[in-house]
């Protein structure tokens, strides 16, 4: 235990005194978040409202409402079926969806009250605070023109459950997954470097058990991973207002599993490398395709079909998917159980191969 603690302390001191590594450790995820966050977060369009109208009534009142909405410069009118329009709202491409129920026009003529359901995106303040009064105003105008009794049509606002997501909500968990992958994959190179500099050999001449050395190395990497994850989540929250939809513990657990998986994978990969240079080559060869194919920056549905088998085999795809689900509540690509199973399989598989093939000399 004394040896383990001293090894961990020595390892952390070495890292803290390595300015280059510290720079990349802190700066890299920040650069990525700020860069991509800035590129993608400018898309919340406040200058206009995308209003979907579901026209179940074809009477004069309904047509009057359409015309009134269409005449407003801030409104972009879409007319469509209820399912399609609500789906569009959930995806974030509508701000409001107005249902004009069947029998609307005749009900108004016969002086009956009619409720007009107005669905809005609960996460967008613009929709509820500006959009709904706007609709109420239009309803009153049209009604007054038609009947002189502006009291029959009543807007009934309904927040849509599924939150619509900003691009940063998609990006942030992906960047976190990517950072974990890089930290994990490159962590084993330190062992190769210790071997290359004969430090492993020197340690081998002491009674220190090898397992304790590896345990200390892995512990430090997992600590770093947790710190880096915390850093990313905090930046996401402070700069872009990204909130965690599930519990922090759950996110921490996935971060830990992700870090374990990629640290093991790193050890497995470098077990085939003789030198630090060749180890770096192998790690780069693995991490670059994963970075671009695992849906870090764009959804994997954009990736052409012939690459899909790779996409679906890579651990990063599943870590990013799981983190998106537990951090920001993105719709799942795979079930959380599938994410868990595949990550665990990669974790144990690479752990066993790493133990089997790593050369100490």
């Amino acid at each position: 235990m004394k040896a383990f603690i001293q090894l961990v302390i020595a390892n952390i001191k070495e890292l803290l005194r390595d300015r280059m590594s510290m720079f990349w450790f802190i700066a890299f995820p920040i650069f990525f978040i700020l860069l991509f966050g800035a590129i993608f977060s400018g898309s919340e369009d406040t200058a206009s409202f995308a209003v979907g109208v579901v026209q179940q009534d074809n009477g004069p009142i309904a047509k009057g409402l359409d015309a009134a909405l269409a005449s407003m410069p801030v409104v972009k009118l879409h007319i469509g079926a209820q399912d399609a329009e609500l789906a569009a709202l959930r995806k974030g491409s509508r701000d409001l969806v107005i249902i004009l129920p069947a029998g609307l026009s005749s009900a108004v003529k016969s002086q009956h009250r009619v409720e007009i359901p107005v669905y809005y995106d609960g996460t967008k303040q613009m929709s509820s605070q500006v959009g709904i009064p706007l609709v109420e105003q239009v309803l009153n105008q049209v009604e007054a023109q038609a009947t002189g009794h502006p009291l029959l049509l009543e807007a009934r606002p309904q927040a849509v459950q599924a939150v619509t997501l900003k691009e940063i909500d998609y990006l942030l968990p992906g960047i976190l997954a990517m950072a974990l992958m890089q930290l994990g994959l490159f962590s084993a190179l330190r062992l190769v470097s210790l071997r290359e500099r004969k430090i492993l050999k020197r340690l081998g001449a002491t009674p220190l058990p090898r397992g304790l050395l590896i345990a200390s190395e892995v512990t430090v990497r997992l600590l770093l991973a947790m710190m880096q994850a915390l850093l990313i989540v905090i930046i996401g929250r402070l700069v872009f207002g990204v909130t965690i939809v599930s519990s922090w513990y759950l996110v921490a657990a996935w971060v830990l599993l992700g870090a374990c998986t990629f640290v093991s994978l790193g050890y497995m990969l470098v077990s085939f490398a003789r030198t630090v240079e060749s180890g770096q080559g192998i790690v780069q060869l693995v991490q670059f395709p994963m970075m671009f194919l695992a849906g870090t920056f764009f959804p994997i549905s954009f990736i052409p079909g012939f690459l899909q088998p790779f996409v679906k085999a890579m651990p990063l795809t599943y870590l990013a998917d799981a983190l998106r689900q537990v951090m920001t509540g993105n719709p799942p690509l795979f079930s959380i159980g599938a994410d868990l199973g595949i990550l665990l399989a990669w974790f144990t598989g690479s752990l066993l191969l790493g133990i089997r093939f790593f050369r100490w000399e």
Partner: protein
Amino acid sequence: MLDSLDLSSAPGADLAIEVAGLCKSYGAVRAVDGLSFSVPAGEIFGMLGPNGAGKSTTVEILIGLRQRDGGEVRVLGRDPKRHPTAIKRRIGVQLQITALYPRLTVKETVRLFASFFPKTLPIAEAIARVGLEEKADDRVDRLSGGQAQRLSVALAMINDGDIIFLDEPTTGLDPQARRSLWDVILELKEAGKTVFLTTHYMDEAERLCDRVAVVDHGQIIAMGSPAKLIRDNFHEQALEFNQPALGNHVDLQTLPGVIRMQQEGESTTLYTDQAPRTIAALMEASANANLPVSDMTVRQATLEDVFLKLTGRRIRE
């Protein structure tokens, strides 16, 4: 095999190391080819030989870093193949290539290594013994070669082990740094430690070692105290000079007193049991041939001469 070792030599003389018929091959290369020797406790024992003679391989087998192919080994009475951890607790090791964590300080490095052992010297004492007190808070990557080597020896001393293995401790150091390390090694002996040392420096072996095994191509070609090795091989003095052309005019072997002659590049060495007569004859021959000799020295034979005599080669890096 162990039967061939003299285990009952002097009463109470514990053997720190016993080796019989040790063999190790790397592919077709026989790095160690049937070594047998034993080291009594409290002795400084040296393995002397050129690079590639099998010295490091022997050390690595003794300390349990490498598996032997054949033969018997006992370190502190135990077989390093079967009890590597028990042996590692009771020995100190300095390996040939000093490799340490570059960004730790001297003190941090010693503290780290101390944590691997159940019992150790105080950190400050280990640092003081090698004279690195002033560098205790300096990073390892800012130490000079001699300081790094002394740190390495401090690490070998940290567990206050019974045997200290030093694999070429002074290679690459300047003369002053070598001398200060020699003092550290001699203090180890005074403290009652057994020291197993490899070197390819003759003067180092002569100065430090109680006994020396001269090794070449994985075999011991001579063993004994430095004085005995020299005495056994040379009754004579060595007369060295530079004038390669002189040998073409005079048969130097026939000069009075000359027993043997050795030519190495520019340098000629005549081994003689009548040095004054040989010098006089050499001067005369030189004057007659009008070929003045330069850099002439007369000296007692050294281990260098022993190695040269036994192998026909000098022991250079």
